[in-house]
């Protein structure tokens, strides 16, 4: 009888343990780099909804900054404390891939593509070495911003070529105003604006197929020369600008034109907020080029857990996030900045119903159009070389511009020095 009781009690205990183990949800930690409070709040609202509808999975966010994560994430993975999901931009993916912390998402992306149809330019930077390394989540593409009323008063039409652009900037300069606000800081913003000139002169590739550097070529030199010429019409402190200063210059009407991912939020809150007057256009191209292109940053989400159950849960969550009914709300964590990466996302009511997005609908539509011809340095040939992470992080494109703007070198000499620096980085 005693033995029977013991066996029964043990059986009951095992059953309870098994039951409780089965009921334990899979917990995913997501490091995302959207720190402003309104973005964290919107993501949390979505997570609460997901966690409620999926009791077997719990996703928690841990906001990080882009400034820290390049050092913090590798250290966390080395210490065994890395996240299960990690936001990324293409060059950051190469860093995480190099330390073996990212898991391919080929099947997931294939399924999502069939269902939602990714915009090709957003997927390409994550597809190399035979795999897809992140799920595209949102896109950012540089556009040219201006005021229609200012152009009209100056008798200008929207410039399409570099010569028209320079003429427009010259006409808008004077009386304490600057025709254009172009940065020349050794910083990511300048990398972006410089590369947007390069892609508009057909100098998109900085690598050859064999991984050697192809930066020093006549097209790149011409792009730098055009940039330096226009930069002379920018405010004198522009060699120390980041995104905020350019946006402030535009909002205060000191700058006639700027290149930005968006100015909608600050223009709406801090400037006139007149949607009818806010102009956005594709970045002008070199006179001998047929069409405009731009730099675009496809932000993705990587799966960075080796645990099979967590990988499965992560796929469920990412699939849920890209469903049109949720995806638009995700993009509108910062209305007018984050652009859809899927075709059905671009049509989703949840995206277009936001009041700010509705107010600036024509601008957002133009931004989406511009993003379709977006490229990113180091991710244009279908082959990705690990040194792009260091080339991007060290802002070599911006450094090259500073040799012209600050040191007074010729564009040809500066590009030659840029080629040498990139080659040195690639060789290490």
């Amino acid at each position: 009888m005693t033995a029977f009781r013991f066996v029964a009690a043990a059986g009951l205990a095992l059953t309870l343990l098994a039951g409780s183990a089965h009921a334990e949800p899979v917990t995913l930690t997501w490091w995302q780099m959207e720190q402003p409070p309104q973005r964290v709040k919107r993501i949390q609202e979505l997570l609460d909804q997901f966690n409620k509808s999926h009791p077997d999975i719990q996703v928690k966010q841990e906001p990080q900054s882009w400034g820290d994560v390049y050092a913090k994430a590798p250290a966390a993975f080395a210490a065994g404390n890395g996240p299960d999901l990690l936001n990324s931009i293409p060059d950051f993916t190469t860093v995480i891939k190099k330390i073996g912390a990212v898991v391919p998402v080929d099947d997931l992306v294939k399924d999502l593509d069939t269902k939602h149809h990714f915009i090709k330019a957003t997927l390409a930077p994550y597809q190399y070495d035979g795999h897809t390394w992140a799920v595209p989540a949102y896109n950012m593409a540089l556009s040219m911003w201006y005021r229609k009323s200012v152009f009209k008063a100056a008798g200008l039409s929207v410039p399409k070529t570099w010569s028209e652009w320079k003429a427009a900037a010259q006409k808008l300069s004077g009386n304490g105003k600057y025709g254009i606000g172009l940065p020349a800081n050794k910083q990511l913003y300048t990398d972006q604006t410089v590369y947007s000139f390069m892609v508009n002169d057909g100098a998109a590739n900085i690598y050859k197929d064999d991984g050697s550097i192809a930066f020093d070529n006549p097209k790149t030199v011409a792009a730098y020369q055009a940039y330096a010429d226009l930069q002379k019409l920018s405010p004198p402190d522009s060699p120390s600008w980041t995104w905020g200063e350019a946006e402030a210059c535009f909002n205060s009407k000191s700058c006639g034109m700027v290149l930005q991912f968006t100015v909608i939020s600050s223009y709406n809150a801090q400037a006139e907020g007149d949607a009818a007057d806010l102009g956005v256009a594709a970045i002008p191209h070199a006179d001998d080029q047929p069409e405009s292109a731009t730099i675009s940053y496809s932000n993705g989400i990587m799966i960075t857990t080796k645990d099979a159950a967590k990988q499965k849960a992560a796929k469920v969550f990412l699939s849920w996030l890209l469903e049109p009914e949720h995806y638009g709300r995700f993009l509108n964590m910062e209305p007018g900045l984050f652009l859809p990466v899927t075709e059905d996302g671009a049509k989703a009511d949840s995206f277009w119903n936001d009041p700010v997005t509705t107010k600036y609908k024509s601008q957002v539509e133009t931004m989406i159009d511009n993003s379709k011809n977006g490229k990113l340095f180091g991710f244009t040939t279908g082959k990705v070389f690990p040194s792009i992470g260091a080339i991007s992080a060290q802002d070599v494109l911006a450094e090259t511009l500073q040799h012209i703007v600050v040191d007074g070198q010729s564009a040809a000499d500066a590009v030659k020095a840029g080629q040498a620096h990139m080659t040195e980085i690639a060789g290490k």
Partner: protein
Amino acid sequence: MKKNTALAFVFVAPALLFLLAVLGWPLVQAVIFSFEDIGIIGSQGHFVGFANYAAVLGGMHFWSALGRSVVWVVGNAVVQTVLALGTALVLNQKFPGLRVARVWVILTWIVPTVVVVIIWRWLLSTSGGMINPLLMEAGIISRPIGFFATRRSAMVALILINSWRWFPFTALMMLAGLTRIPGDLYEAARIDGANARRRFTRITWPLLRPTLVVLGVIGTLLSFNVFDVIWLMTAGGPSQATETLPVLIYETAFKGYRLSEAATISVLTSVVLMSFAVLATRAMTASEAGR
């Protein structure tokens, strides 16, 4: 006596062990890393001997950054000493509101670095900043200038901003030194007919000198290691004009993904600073002994 010494060691041991853990171990790690070829933090490295030292000492980056660090330290020392000494001398006088002035003078020192940077970036901006219009009104400049747009002006602007932040702290240290000078010395000098200049050169300066020397040593070490203001203001630019050694170390480790090379520069920087500290301490000791 021996028992007392042993007991003293027992009491001091926990603090020593704590210091070894939080200061000694990272230093040892940095030395170990400097003999390896680690790239990205967290990745594996291999022993490479003195290759990193040969590369760093044989290249230009380390020496250029060291030169800029020297300019930075000397510039800060000169500007802060002038501002702090003047302030300390004023605060050592008796005038209405003295207590309020002594408290509020430290305001710039207690403001967080990020706030200091935002304030100055805005003040110096050409889009709504106040400095350019003021200089134009005063007829000093004819059109707005970019303070961080040229190599020389960027370093000068940074030194002035950093000195603006730190001089109140130095001034309070000097004030403490001034208040230790006996008042009857000045009284006797006045009776002997010494004017203000002679009282300063014959009493204030000689008696304040030990305080200034100590402040000089500590200030040099603190200035040398300043990273936050430089990084947030210019990130070492334009065109590396403000890239001091701490900035170079950060750039190399976290932007260039060359952790071992950064560790090598850190070790060499530590050697430079330790040598300076040892030499300065010896000089101070010799000076004290000779007095």
